[in-house]
């Protein structure tokens, strides 16, 4: 199977989620009083669903730009850990590497970090690029359609569960690779502590606490299949 075909197949759950979510974002943006073209531009240059949704809600509520940046900063900071798993794998020219780093969103990270042995060398690079570009395209396209005709479309309920399903399968595969129940304990403790300290930013808080715990209680090297 060629890298693009494999990437496309793996990206299908993301397609089912990003298109409807993008539709909603495009519609919200257009309803906030901006021209239809701004929503896809945001999606193209920001490519961060959580940040975009929080931003548009705060913009519609009349918040200042400073307030919006402060509100979305924790959402953005959680992505700081993703690149650690790709320092060696993302051996591209400068501009491609920058784009690939920019494209390391939740869904791209979860699929690539779990499927790191499907291809090697140049084929793996094509696989990584294909997946990143596909996810980016789905998000921008969904936003574009939402901004243009969103008010005329009824999005079926529950489509976003496709992304949850993807994360569950990736979690199972990652746990099997780790050959340890430690990640469950660490993530659980991270979530509990984050629920007490940063309840509004559960994921970001949970990630930072889990990162600290991972440095203190790392997985054994031999436990991970290379």
């Amino acid at each position: 199977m060629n890298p693009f075909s494999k990437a496309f197949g793996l990206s299908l759950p993301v397609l089912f989620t990003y298109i409807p979510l993008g539709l909603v974002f495009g519609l919200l943006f257009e309803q906030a009083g901006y021209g239809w073209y701004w929503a896809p531009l945001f999606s193209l240059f920001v490519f961060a669903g959580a940040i975009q949704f929080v931003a548009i809600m705060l913009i519609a509520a009349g918040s200042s730009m400073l307030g919006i940046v402060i509100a979305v900063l924790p959402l953005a900071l959680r992505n700081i850990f993703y690149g650690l798993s790709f320092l060696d794998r993302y051996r591209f020219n400068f501009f491609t590497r920058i784009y690939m780093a920019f494209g390391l969103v939740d869904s791209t990270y979860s699929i690539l970090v779990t499927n790191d042995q499907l291809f090697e060398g140049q084929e793996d690079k094509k696989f990584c690029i294909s997946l990143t570009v596909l996810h980016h395209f789905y998000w921008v396209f969904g936003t574009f359609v939402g901004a243009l005709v969103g008010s005329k479309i009824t999005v079926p309920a529950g489509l976003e569960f496709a992304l949850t399903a993807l994360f569950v399968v990736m979690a199972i595969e990652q746990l099997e690779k780790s050959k340890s129940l430690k990640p469950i304990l660490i993530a659980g403790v991270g979530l509990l502590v984050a629920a007490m300290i940063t309840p509004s930013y559960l994921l970001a808080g949970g990630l930072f606490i889990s990162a600290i715990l991972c440095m203190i209680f790392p997985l054994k090297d031999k436990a991970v299949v290379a």
Partner: protein
Amino acid sequence: MIKPMVACMLLSAVAFVPRVFPFLLGNQLKKSVHLNNLARSLPPCIMLLLVAHALQTGEVLSYPGGVCQVLGILAIIVTHLIFRKMLVSMAVGFFVYQALLHYV
């Protein structure tokens, strides 16, 4: 009204900088034992946290939506442990969730 160009550029920077940060420090990061431990140990934790985040976003404690999500996830886990086919497991879980959501 906030100027959209300003908002777009600022938010793009906010999203972009954390993602590209590890790559800017690449060589120094590779020398750090702690950060190597992190790179090895964090991915499964991140996946579990993403599942928890997706459940929270979908209001796991709500009824019937939350119950449908939990049952859908259980269907995924069982199917994946038996068949080991990613898209099959996701499809089964997705359809279980949709069926419960619409018909229960």
